[in-house]
């Protein structure tokens, strides 16, 4: 046994040196990590350590144009427990946990005890606890390291109007992001806000680290979105559509759009059938699908979601394309007048016309007894197809389609919603395509496209981009961003627009016009009817696109009824009256003054007896009043079957024609009174408007301006009363 030799010692020294080198290399490596990469690693580590506690922001509210809430977020926590874990608490006994929770949640102590000792994996203790209580519980939990109690943030979206805005808004998913291509989805990035953070340093499992370095970055709540929609108008349109669907047995859905032609603002956009945004996955009771059984409905199953997507979830106003039919003749008219190939007084006819590439001649819809020779204006009133074919032929394919394009029919409108369908035209446009397109056939567009084109038609020629989003506001209501109306392009001249309005007013106003059913005394409704065929036999689409007042249009109204199965499928018969009703309701809501023509006034000064409609049903009463030339207004929650209990004015009163009779479906406890307005100096037309707004009727004597009124201004007058007003001609008197 010898001591290590020289060679061995040398080997040992090599070992020493090798290890020393490795140590040096590792020190260099550590220096590199700590000094070169240090700041970046530290940053990443910080982010990781502080990512544990997020404060969720509150989703923005969606308002209508008048500040009514359409979608709101209700922030609430749900507190639940895991009984097994509660029992394993180190610091607190189950009794102590029950005491503390009962105290903080204002619950019965025994109830809480029962829940936290329940033989189950989880039990909900209380829902919708407020923020303050939640914070108290969280503090208590971290102070006592309480296990087995969970608080879940529950930011529930609530839609106060249920069905009213279903397609416009869409709903939000489980993680609160917007769905369905509606405003919730499209504006999601503004609505959702930015999560905040509690910058306490936390461990990988999210428990708080004992440290005083807690900093807080508050969540930034989502912005509010203000729509151009008017909730009241939306409601009026929705109600009218519901009634239309029922009355006309509409099977394929119905669409109603109201736009402001001057700004392109969508005031209302309704598609039927609709669904309740608060229960979007529920069984759609409002539709009939063969083999659809409520008892077999499984919410959120593929099958049920499929059915919903096909039916109630569909925003038909932008996703369904259809042939616009005769409603499109206004466009042909505008193009012809703008290009000077036709004037309202041009003599034309509706005799069958041959078109190259088509075996059969094109006839007027009244094929049996054609209208014969007529002015172009009359051809529009009568909706004679051959007359429009002639206009299109005079324009030629290129010019005709340049107008189709300019009116926006060949591209999507670009509305702030997802899912807008693309219009469909024949791939290569031939003579025959143009000929039938002149009266709205062989191409399909969305209802929104037609309504948008009508804005240009009636507003002086400017095609407006449909605007749905008006502005974004913050939680204090300050406007953060404004979306201005956008003119896409000028399509026709001011003069052409005026001429077209004039003709289309005649379509409605002329007693022989095809749109006469849309007539509203004093509101000068113009428009065009449409009855389109579809690819399916015997399936029609009845529509009417109107506007009012014709001299200064404030609204464009489009109603489309798909597959009506009632007495008629003609647009002039079933769609026109709805547009008339909506125009009247909306304009009077918007406080647009009625303009009575001499003819109107003459009709209105004719006096009639008020019939006795008490004890009749509402439906019978309405019929009787209409027959007498009177209008009506129902007071109370009545339907057609309710009995009229009381009426104002009383039976046998003598009132001017068109006066409004109030029908009470309940016994009024006290008479409703209104304040008598001041009429002095007003014209007949102004006086009628003022009194009607106040809920009063007028009895006229004399002519000129108001000279005397029966009740002094400010006096309480029974609502519906007939007020005697004396008129005198005060100027031009010698």
């Amino acid at each position, binding site marked *: *046994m010898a001591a290590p030799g020289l060679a061995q010692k040398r080997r040992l020294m090599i070992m020493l040196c090798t290890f020393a080198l490795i140590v040096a290399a590792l020190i260099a490596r550590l220096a590199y990590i*700590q000094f070169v990469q240090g700041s970046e690693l530290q940053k990443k580590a910080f982010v990781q350590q502080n990512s544990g506690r997020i404060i969720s922001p509150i989703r923005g509210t969606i308002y209508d144009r008048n500040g009514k809430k359409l979608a709101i977020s209700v922030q609430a926590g749900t507190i639940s427990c895991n009984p097994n874990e509660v029992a394993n608490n180190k610091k607190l006994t189950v009794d102590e946990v029950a005491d503390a929770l009962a105290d903080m949640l204002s619950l019965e102590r025994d109830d809480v005890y029962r829940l936290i000792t329940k033989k189950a994996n989880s039990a909900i203790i209380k829902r919708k606890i407020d923020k303050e209580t939640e914070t108290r519980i969280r503090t208590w939990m971290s102070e006592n390291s309480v296990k087995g109690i969970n608080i879940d943030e529950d930011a529930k979206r609530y839609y106060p109007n249920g069905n009213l805005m279903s397609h416009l808004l869409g709903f939000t998913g489980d993680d609160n992001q917007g769905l369905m291509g509606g405003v919730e989805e499209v504006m999601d990035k503004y609505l959702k806000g930015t999560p905040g953070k509690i910058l306490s340093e936390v461990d990988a499992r999210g428990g708080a680290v004992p440290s005083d370095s807690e900093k807080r970055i508050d969540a930034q709540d989502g912005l509010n979105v203000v729509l151009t929609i008017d909730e009241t108008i939306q409601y009026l349109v929705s109600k009218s559509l519901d009634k239309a669907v029922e009355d006309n047995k509409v099977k394929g859905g119905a669409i109603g759009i109201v736009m402001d032609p001057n700004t392109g603002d969508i005031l209302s956009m309704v598609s039927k059938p609709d669904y309740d945004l608060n229960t979007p996955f529920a069984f759609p009771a409002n539709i009939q699908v063969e083999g659809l059984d409520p008892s077999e409905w499984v919410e959120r199953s593929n099958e049920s979601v499929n059915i919903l997507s096909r039916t109630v979830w569909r925003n038909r106003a932008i996703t369904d394309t259809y042939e616009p039919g005769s409603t499109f003749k206004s466009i042909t008219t505008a193009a012809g007048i703008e290009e000077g190939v036709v004037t309202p007084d041009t003599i034309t006819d509706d005799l069958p016309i041959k078109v190259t590439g088509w075996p059969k001649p094109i006839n007027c819809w009244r094929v049996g007894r054609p209208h014969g020779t007529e002015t172009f204006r009359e051809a529009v009133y009568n909706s004679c197809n051959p007359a429009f074919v002639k206009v299109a032929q005079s324009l030629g394919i290129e010019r005709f389609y340049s107008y189709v394009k300019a009116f926006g029919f060949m591209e999507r409108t670009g509305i702030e919603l997802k899912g807008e369908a693309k219009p469909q035209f024949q791939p290569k446009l031939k003579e025959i395509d143009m000929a039938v397109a002149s009266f709205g056939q062989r191409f399909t567009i969305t209802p929104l496209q037609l309504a948008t084109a009508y804005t240009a038609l009636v507003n002086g020629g400017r095609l407006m981009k449909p605007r749905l989003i008006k502005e974004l506001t913050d939680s204090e209501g300050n406007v953060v961003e404004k979306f201005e109306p956008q003119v896409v392009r000028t399509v026709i001249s001011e003069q052409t627009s005026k001429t077209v309005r004039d003709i289309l007013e005649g379509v409605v106003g002329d007693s022989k016009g095809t749109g006469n059913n849309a007539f509203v005394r004093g509101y000068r409704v113009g428009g065009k009817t449409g009855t389109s065929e579809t690819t399916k036999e015997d399936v029609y689409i009845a529509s009417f696109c109107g506007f009012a007042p014709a001299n200064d249009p404030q609204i464009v109204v489009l109603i489309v009824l798909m597959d009506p199965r009632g007495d008629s499928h003609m647009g002039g018969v079933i769609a026109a009256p709805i547009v008339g009703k909506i125009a009247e309701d909306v304009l009077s809501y918007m406080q647009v003054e009625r303009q009575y023509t001499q003819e109107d006034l003459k009709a209105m000064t004719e006096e009639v007896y008020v019939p006795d409609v008490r004890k009749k049903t509402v439906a019978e009463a309405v019929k009787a009043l209409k027959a007498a030339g009177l209008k009506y207004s129902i007071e109370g929650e009545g339907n057609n079957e309710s009995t009229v209990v009381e009426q104002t004015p009383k039976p046998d009163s003598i009132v001017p024609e068109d006066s409004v009779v109030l029908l009470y479906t309940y016994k009024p406890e006290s008479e409703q009174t209104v304040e008598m307005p001041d009429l002095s100096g007003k014209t007949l037309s102004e006086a009628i408007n003022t009194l009607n707004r106040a809920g009063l009727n007028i009895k006229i004597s004399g002519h000129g301006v108001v000279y005397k009124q029966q009740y002094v201004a400010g006096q309480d007058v029974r609502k519906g009363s007939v007020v005697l007003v004396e008129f005198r001609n005060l100027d031009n008197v010698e």
Partner: protein
Amino acid sequence: MKNKKPFDFLLFITVLILLSLGLIMVFSASAPTAEKYYGNIYHYINRQLVFAGLGMAAMLLAANYDYHKIGKKTVWILLLVSIVLLILVLIPGIGSESKGSWRWIIIAGFRFQPSELAKMALILFYSYSLSKRKKPLDSFFGDLLPYLFVLGIIVALLLLETHLSATIIMISIAMIILFAAGAKIRHFAALVLPVTALVIAVITFTDYMTPRLRSWIDPWSDPRGDGYQTIQSLYAIGSGGLFGRGLGQSMQKFLYVPEPQNDYIFPILAEELGFVGVVAVLLLFMIFIWRGIKIAVHAPDTYGCLIASGVTALIAVQSLFNVAVVTNSVPPTGVSLPFFSAGGTALILFMAEAGILLNVSRYSRYERI
């Protein structure tokens, strides 16, 4: 042989400082994990203090037990017991599984790691056997192969455990002892080729190393999976800076770094004590190595020289390997840091091995400090 001197004081102090630092770090690093899983921040440190006490006893005992008395019978028994335990650990019911590896035998509530004992057995067996040789290690087949055969058995068993780090350490210390014992350089060269080929084959034909290599080259390619430990380790080290966050101030120990009191204790130390701290610890290990080799060089006989070389090699390889892993300097594998990482078997055996080294120093002929 009879001229016994006091043991190497510098080495003794170095071991004590390393152990004390280790205990402080185990306490600091393990507190959050202990709180989370045992509801008691002292859970790990209490156990570690017991092991440290046993380790101190083992070290003092070994330091005063003449290493020459560790004879043929002892080294053979140690070797055979180690091999038997390495076989037993593979048997389900006796061995206990942890993360897909069979590394532990539970004896009286304590987890015992046979691979730690095998390291010591190999050092003593090699040292004894090589020192008793009459002729040098001239022939590869005649002289070297029996040693490689013993190593092969142990390595095969460790590979069956899928205990890669222990395998590497075992091979390293075996090679170092053979090198110190005068094995021919060309024989090592001859070994390099097949080993390299084997490693390349493993990398190419099996998936065992693929994720490790990937996460070594770019830990951020799978930050939640294979790269997780490495990233957390680098976050901890990178957060340390020059002086660190201060003792007890690590953020990464809050359950980010997995088992921060074990294999990844060094990053926590780096985070809390900074560059200054890690350099100090590395220098302490360097002092250990320096003293160990000095003891080997001045050992009175080959047996002492080889024991000293073996023990030094073990501490050196394992500590530097650990630091290399946590700094992502080599592909990741689980290797504990001597004197630091929590764990009974390893600490007691390391202390005992340090004790043997101290014992050798008592017979070494050099000036004491």
